């Protein structure tokens, strides 16, 4: 009976996480267009519904009802499965993330985390990096030069940012002594002055940059940059298969936002009079806004510049940071 209860609980949690993040991701596309329009002194979507909110529904209907085109010379099974890989890995990564503090409903305590494994940080980062397989497989199976270039850039980018994100996260983990996101959250329980961002500013900066690379956001959106490689890996895709890449990208953005909020910015601890759950939502919203802000503010960089900055600037900085943290801890 106990087993059954756990399975049902997990299923419900997984469904909620999937539905809410997919919904939030869809909503984020509208937010993105609105914020970018505001920053560029345009109006953005205005015609469908109040302030263009229903543009979302219109786009959804368009994506779902569009013809599913599979070009002639592609490697069919791989071409078809690549968007699914991109979307599923983004959602699977969320399994180990605690989104909110635990709460009680009808005398039943609920932990808002699908599976509480004690190596959550590694798990989330590992699975999120598997997500790069989506663009890679799409590009390699498309039988299109632009797609292949996009795939090659995906490999290069992945091998570069993996090192930076892994090394930068090591310093905070050394201080806390645990890989569990719940322990990391509890370490910063005493208000703003306890946030790890003050103790590990460099690691925070490096991890945030690696997060931008991982989600292919500008200024590191080399693998689908229109001016250089048409649409990169997604050139041959249309309809819902293309939509799945999009959903995956926004889900990844949410994952990275949550991860940064938990590791460096106090997680879901309550602050003054603001409850923990609201704190978390505020931080994640801020990070999503930051993603859009950076996209509007900064030009995009070339792949060789990206590799240069990863291997020659960020990686040595991360290693020095680990060394200093080690000396201080001893």
């Amino acid at each position: 009976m106990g087993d059954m209860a756990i399975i049902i609980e997990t299923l419900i949690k997984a469904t909620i996480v999937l539905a809410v993040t997919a919904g939030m991701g869809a909503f984020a596309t509208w937010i993105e267009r609105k914020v970018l329009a505001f920053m560029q002194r345009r109006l953005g979507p205005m015609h469908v519904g109040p302030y263009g909110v229903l543009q979302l529904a219109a786009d959804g209907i368009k994506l779902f009802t569009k013809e599913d085109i599979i070009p002639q010379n592609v490697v069919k099974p791989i071409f078809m499965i690549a968007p699914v890989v991109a979307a599923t890995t983004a959602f699977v990564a969320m399994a180990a993330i605690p989104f909110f503090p635990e709460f009680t409903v009808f005398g039943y305590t609920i932990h808002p985390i699908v599976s509480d494994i004690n190596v959550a940080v590694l798990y989330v980062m590992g699975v999120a990096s598997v997500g790069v397989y989506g663009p890679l497989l799409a590009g390699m199976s498309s039988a299109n030069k632009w797609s292949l270039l996009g795939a090659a850039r995906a490999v290069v980018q992945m091998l570069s940012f993996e090192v930076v994100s892994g090394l930068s996260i090591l310093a905070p983990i050394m201080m806390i002594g645990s890989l569990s996101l719940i322990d990391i959250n509890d370490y910063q329980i005493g208000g703003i002055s306890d946030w790890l961002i003050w103790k590990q500013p460099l690691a925070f900066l490096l991890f945030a940059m690696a997060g931008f690379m991982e989600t292919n956001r500008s200024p590191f959106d080399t693998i689908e940059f229109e001016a250089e490689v048409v649409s990169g890996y997604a050139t041959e895709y249309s309809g819902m298969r293309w939509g799945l890449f999009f959903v995956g990208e926004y889900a990844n953005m949410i994952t990275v936002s949550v991860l940064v909020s938990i590791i460096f910015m106090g997680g879901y601890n309550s602050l003054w009079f603001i409850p923990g759950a609201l704190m978390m939502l505020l931080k994640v919203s801020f990070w999503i806004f930051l993603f859009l802000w950076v996209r509007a503010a900064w030009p995009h960089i070339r792949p060789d510049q990206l590799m240069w900055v990863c291997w020659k600037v960020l990686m040595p900085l991360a290693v020095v940071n680990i060394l200093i943290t080690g000396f201080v801890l001893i």
Partner: protein
Amino acid sequence: MYEVIAFYVFAALTIGMFSIVVMSKNALYAMSALAGGMIFISGFFFILDADFLGVVQITVYSGAIMALYAFGMMFFDTTRDVSEKMRSKKIAYTLSIASAVLLVVIFCAPFFSQKIEALYPVIENVGNVQMIGLVLFTKYLVPFELAAIMLLVAMIAGIVLASKKMDGEWEAIEDLEDAKEGR
């Protein structure tokens, strides 16, 4: 009960994936199946409560196979089949007999497993990461350090190889610029 179901599902998936790796003539199928198989293997670690090893399996192999894709991209047209040349049939026969013997040994292993004693038995209430750390820094310290030195050597070799090439490219670019300016 659930563990048994999970084991059989992951076992079937892993075997299926790796047989695609061996049988397929398309480099893209083979590499994708390899990546999938490696990720399904991590399922076994999760069933055994070895979370850390499971996650390491995913992280390490996804990166390693990514490098393999890069090579595949350079050497093959991945959308076409690769025609394989089999030089000698002797090697194929020897390998298949060897793998058959290996299979028999693996299936016989459970008969002897009752006599096996764990050198470092599982300690209650100690996390997976801590236990691996303990074994790594006591019993297996020397191999661990040797592996670290080997990686360092490989890294330095890589840097030397790449930096020579980089100097060359830099000179080529400078020559080009000189030529443009008519020097």
